[in-house]
């Protein structure tokens, strides 16, 4: 390295409470690093602002979102094609989704309902009795009344499973069940 020339020459008069200073130049690589980072800063500014090449965050988001849409084709099936599942494994999976999504916070561990949400085990429903209605209210919610829409969080297939689980709860008569709300279904 270059600093081996004149290495460790003491600076006269530099003596502070016994601390002396040497006249070494800064290591060359640290100065190079400094210039490179300054160069980076200039290129960065040019890329995003002066030359207008780079996407700023709004534009970048739109682009990324388009890629996302094409990749996943989020277009849903029509709910008419979705029917209740009766397979025990699917019901069991529906139950685990019920837990995973904290549905119990508003509807109780066993679907018995609580101060927030209605009983899901009786034969009354607020938004319609049939499978499609249950599917729809989970998917689209009724936010003003407190039901969260889950369309951005759960796929149709998973909503189908959790809906099927809920319908399987009918007449399960859990303890502390909340009273009837909504229309009575056959």
């Amino acid at each position, binding site marked *: 390295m270059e600093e081996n020339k004149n290495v460790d020459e003491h600076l006269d008069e530099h003596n502070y409470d016994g601390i002396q200073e040497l006249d070494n130049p800064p290591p060359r690589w640290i*100065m190079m690093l400094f210039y490179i*980072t300054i160069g*980076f800063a200039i290129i960065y500014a040019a890329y995003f*602002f002066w030359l207008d090449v780079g996407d700023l965050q709004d534009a970048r988001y739109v682009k990324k979102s388009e890629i996302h849409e094409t990749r996943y084709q989020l277009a849903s099936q029509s709910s008419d094609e979705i029917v209740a599942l009766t397979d025990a494994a699917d019901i069991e999976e529906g139950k685990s989704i019920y837990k995973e999504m*904290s549905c119990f916070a508003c509807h109780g561990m066993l679907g018995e309902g609580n101060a927030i949400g209605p009983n899901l085990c009786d034969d009354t429903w607020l938004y319609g009795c049939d499978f499609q209605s249950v599917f729809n209210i989970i998917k689209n919610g009724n*936010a003003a009344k*407190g039901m969260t829409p889950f369309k*951005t969080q759960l796929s149709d297939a998973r909503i189908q499973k959790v809906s099927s689980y809920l319908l399987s709860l009918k007449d399960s008569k859990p303890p502390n069940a909340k009273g009837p709300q909504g229309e009575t279904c056959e």
Partner: protein
Amino acid sequence: MENQKFYYDNKTVKLFLLATIIWGVVAVLVGVLIACQLAFPAFNFGLEYTTFGRMRPLHTNAVIFAFVGNAIFAGVYYSLQKLLKARLFSDVLSKIHFWGWQLIIVLAAVTFTLGISTSKEYAELEWPIDILLTVVWVIFGWNMIGTILKRRVQHIYAAIWWYLATFLGVALLHVVNSFELPISLIKSYPIYAGAQDAVVQWWYGHNAVAFFLTTPFLGLMYYYLPKAANRPIYSYRLSIIHFWSLIFLYMWAGPHHLLYQALPEWVQALGVTFSIMLIAPSWGGMINGLLTLRGAWDKVRDSAVLKFFVVAVTAYGMSTFEGPMMSLRNVNQMTHFTDWTIAHTHIAGMAWNGGMTFGMLYWLLPRIFRTKLYSEKLANTHFWIATLSILVYAIPLYWSAVTQWLMLREYTPEGFLAYPNFLETLTQILPMYTLRIISGIMFLTGFLIMVYNLFKTMAAGSVEANEAAEAPALVLAGKRKPLNETIHRWMERKTVRFSIWVFVALFIGGAIQIIPMIFIKSNIPTIDTVTPYTPLELEGRDVYVKEGCYTCHSQVIRPFRWETDRYGDYSKIGEFVYDHPFLWGSRRTGPDLARAGYVNGPMYKNSAWHYNHFMDPQKMNEQSIMPRYDWFAKKDVNLDMTPNKIRAMQTLGVPYPEGFDEQAVDDLLWQANQIVAELKLSGIEIEPTKEMVAMIAYMHKLGRDIEPNTNQNLDSHDTGE
């Protein structure tokens, strides 16, 4: 030339050393407590005074201002006198400085526990304490500059440049960031709103790290490291270059705390580029420190002091490389809002500030007490435990950060978030939080070993309060001698001029960001649909501030698909124009709340849910680590203050109609009664004046005013149907 006789003031140094040790234990203890709270919510003890939201500011402030602050003053006051061959300027100022500083610390501890807080990170102190802090800080500067002016040495040494930058930098940052409008002795609103407040706050926050945790310690390094190693400083020229470049560049880099957030792009770009340019100036300090140890490495093996210094300086180098890397936008999207930042700050805090302080204590305290260190062996034990504990701290948290980030952005093959429930990602990393407790206990154990060692040392020795010394009086050298005196060398003896140039270097970076943010309107594009907070929402917001909710919940959504799918449309600058202070947060221990009030969004919960959740979060989500806030249902909002708050907001430019302060209480009760009625439908009885009602109103205001569909063409993600 005849020698003048004078006396070094060792008593003041001793007092600051003792304060460092005592507050250090407190700061680490509170750290262990909040680490426990994050792993086991029972450690919130069900009391409002001990919840995480109030203890976290206590921990950060205790570490920064109590432990590190006292260490700085001890180290500065000792070295300053020796380097200038002069007694501290004024015994009275020293005394006021010491006791004033301790008073600030006690007041901070009391007010944070009581929930008196501005919510601005590391600047949570309310306005009367802010003023006290300013006064005591000026006394410190006065005492230091007074000492410099009556020195018996021609030039000021590099360490003192750093001390001057520290004094001027912190004074500038603290004053500008603390402009606030008081409405009572214990409550104020910052004059800046939303994105402006964010820029000012993180200009402050970033540079508090610079000028409270970095520059004073570089100064201490320039004195204590060559003293302890008995080696000359490697390069005087490097000292000059890295000093000026560091203090100038640092002040620009604050916006790297706000990348991808609701901030103009040019401000963000300054944060990125200036952070990158800071690598070399920061490393200049590390290199000058480590190269100074050439020829002394054999001493490092035996000396705990030097070992602490080496680890400290190395950790400083690591952190100042890691920091700029975290400022790159693509890296930042992972490191921000996760535990990465927490690990980063703790490497810097425990290893750099801790290591420098421990090394200094082991070197300085025996000298002040005119004896030998009680046990070199115990000091080495402390070193190994402390170093190991830093690894046990950082590695799990890096792991946790990567894990949580990967989970948060993972999609199922159908295109849905793989972990739509935020809590799942938190539950996954909780084991790492348990490991952090172990690290904290280790670090505390090492600390206590040091306390024992130092108290034994003190018992064996005694302080010479006034240590006699002599030196010839200073004859000022007069005009610059252009042939054999460089400009810098000349400035080193023109200390006032030197200080002015330091101030100029410090001033520019902040001014270029803050002034345009406040005075150029195009930086803050407003949104017509965004309305001011109703009186009830404003009261709820103040409860949110008081409880420190911002310590775990952010309120700003970044423009990533995996954030907008989870939380709702990303945040816009214009949404925050009525936010005094801004509440964007810096770590998401819980989910973001920026759109908690947007009715059709994924984050909306109804009033009954919020009521039950505040009363007992674990009832709603067994694995939640949020403390319960059941006192919200018992404590009343102080309606006497409401009109004052409205008037204060009007003064700050929030467009309430004239005379609205008179109707504020009626308006508040009207809105509260609606929520009360809604809760009643769910069988919940509550009075309209309770904090709970205000909090629910505030939750339902968040992000409500902006309809994604009315917002240019950025709504493409909301078409899932």
